[in-house]
């Protein structure tokens, strides 16, 4: 293709996005668009499955049968989200095995929040309330993103995430109505998960290099700082309602901006965790890599069985 032809295609492509047309797998798209989407969608998929670990960790210890069932259902949903997202990424020409390879080698990232440990039962509440809550804010914006398969996966996923968020909040509510030990457990979980949750929206706008391009492709509808502000404004009253204190002495309502002012985020901690040196980065990766390696013989067996069955069928047909 000549340079001019490509330029033409690119112009038509950008025009479609402006018109809010969805881009579908068979449509022409700029290579950069493809690569950016592979990166973001697979990162999102990895977050879902790595996210199964901290919560999966509490399934065997859930305090009641009702909670155990709800937690199992939640973790199962997260696995399902991983499936839809891997499928959405596959439409861009990458295989699931390749994506796993990138995850296991450390080339692909996943949400840093899952590198924090889930230490008490209250963490199941805090994760649902704050982490799923933050995820929804990020993801609702993506329901209108330009790439069709991603946008459709998001619509489906967002419904379930908001259910998870309510479930998490309900765990916290129950704790806050309980014995002093339960209240303390809830407060402690909030203390540990508050700041990492704010970090889930990514670096400050002036340090976020991809924002402009991502906004253009509707991979982002609002900036990191806007989304973070929205999360804080939504969450503070929820904490107050159940008698929990946000662990930020600088938090204060600002009447002028109709939002909360908040204290400084520890960006050194953020980058430390992103670069692989958070409290659980190593354990999480080890768990994923182990599951994959120990599962090799099982996947090989399934493949070999399927091939044998296929051959038998062919023979019968002859």
């Amino acid at each position: 293709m000549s340079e001019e032809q490509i330029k033409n295609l690119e112009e038509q492509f950008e025009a479609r996005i402006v018109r809010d047309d969805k881009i579908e797998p068979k449509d022409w798209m700029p290579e950069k668009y493809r690569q950016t989407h592979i990166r973001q969608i697979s990162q999102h998929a990895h977050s879902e499955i790595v996210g199964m670990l901290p919560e999966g960790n509490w399934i065997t210890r859930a305090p009641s049968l009702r909670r155990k069932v709800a937690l199992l259902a939640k973790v199962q949903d997260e696995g399902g989200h991983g499936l839809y997202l891997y499928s959405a990424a596959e439409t861009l020409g990458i295989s699931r095995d390749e994506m796993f390879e990138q995850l296991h080698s450390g080339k692909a990232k996943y949400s840093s929040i899952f590198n924090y440990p889930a230490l008490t039962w209250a963490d199941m509440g805090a994760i649902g309330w704050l982490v799923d809550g933050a995820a929804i804010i990020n993801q609702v914006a993506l329901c209108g993103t330009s790439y069709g398969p991603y946008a459709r996966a998001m619509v489906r996923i967002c419904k379930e995430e908001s259910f998870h968020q309510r479930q998490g909040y309900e765990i916290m509510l129950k704790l806050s109505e309980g014995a002093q030990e339960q209240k303390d457990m809830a407060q402690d979980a909030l203390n540990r998960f508050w700041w990492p949750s704010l970090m889930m929206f990514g670096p400050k706008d002036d340090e976020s290099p991809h924002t402009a391009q991502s906004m253009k492709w509707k991979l982002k509808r609002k900036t990191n700082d806007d989304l973070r502000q929205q999360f804080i404004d939504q969450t503070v009253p929820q904490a107050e309602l159940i008698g929990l204190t946000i662990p930020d002495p600088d938090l204060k309502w600002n009447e002028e901006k109709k939002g909360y002012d908040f204290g400084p985020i520890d960006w050194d901690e953020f980058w430390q965790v992103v670069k692989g040196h958070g409290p659980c980065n190593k354990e999480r990766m080890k768990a994923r890599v182990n599951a994959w390696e120990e599962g090799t013989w099982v996947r090989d067996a399934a493949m070999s069985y399927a091939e044998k069955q296929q051959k038998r069928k062919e023979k019968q047909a002859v």
Partner: protein
Amino acid sequence: MKEQLYKYILGIADNSLILGQRMGELCGHGPSLETDIACTNISLDLFGQVRSYYQYAAKIAGDNRTEDDIAMLRKEREYVNVLLVEQPNTDFAYIMARHFLFDMYHYMFLQELQKSQDLTLSAIATKSIKEVSYHLRFSSDWIKRLGDGTEESHSRIKNSIDDLWTYTDELFHLTDADKVMVNEGVGVDVTKLKDTYYTKVSEILQEATLEVPESKYFQKGGKQGIHTEHLGYLLAELQYMQRAYPNMEW
């Protein structure tokens, strides 16, 4: 009669409880995302069944006992699950072999329980059998894949079936509570399921190119609360919160 019914319900439900707990340990660690989701789903089904049974048992007991008290506050010797379901998740072959050997029994048992004179139990059976027929299909398929897969998978599944075989006979033992309930038309006479069970299991094993184990040495004791050493650890996790924070609502 009430006491016997209570015991009878626990005899059914404890199996689902302990197996559900074992399957819940796997979450996020399976050989593929699909098996992970399936194992989580199976655990979820089993705990759903457990809740129905224990809620009913709590009603029968008629004191302030709750489903959670029954699930989480008994002593080790008071759990009456069969030894098979408490065996550890040694590897995926053991997990599937254990599941398959139990699912076949579980399916046949529920088929009969649907005919119970006790309407609550027959209703639970009717609801559960749909789930369990899926479990049985899932585990049977894996037995075939592993048996007729690669050399390695064949030898692994063979070893696990051989090892777990010793726990199958106990499935067909009648406890005192079972006998009373069979006479009342409430319980299932599991001794009558035994021959068909071994026939059906053998069929699947043969299809999986596996030999049916010949050993006639069997273990028993679970139904009397005499377990393998594995159960204590499982209960320690299951009961942790209820023991560490007694008398609280969650």
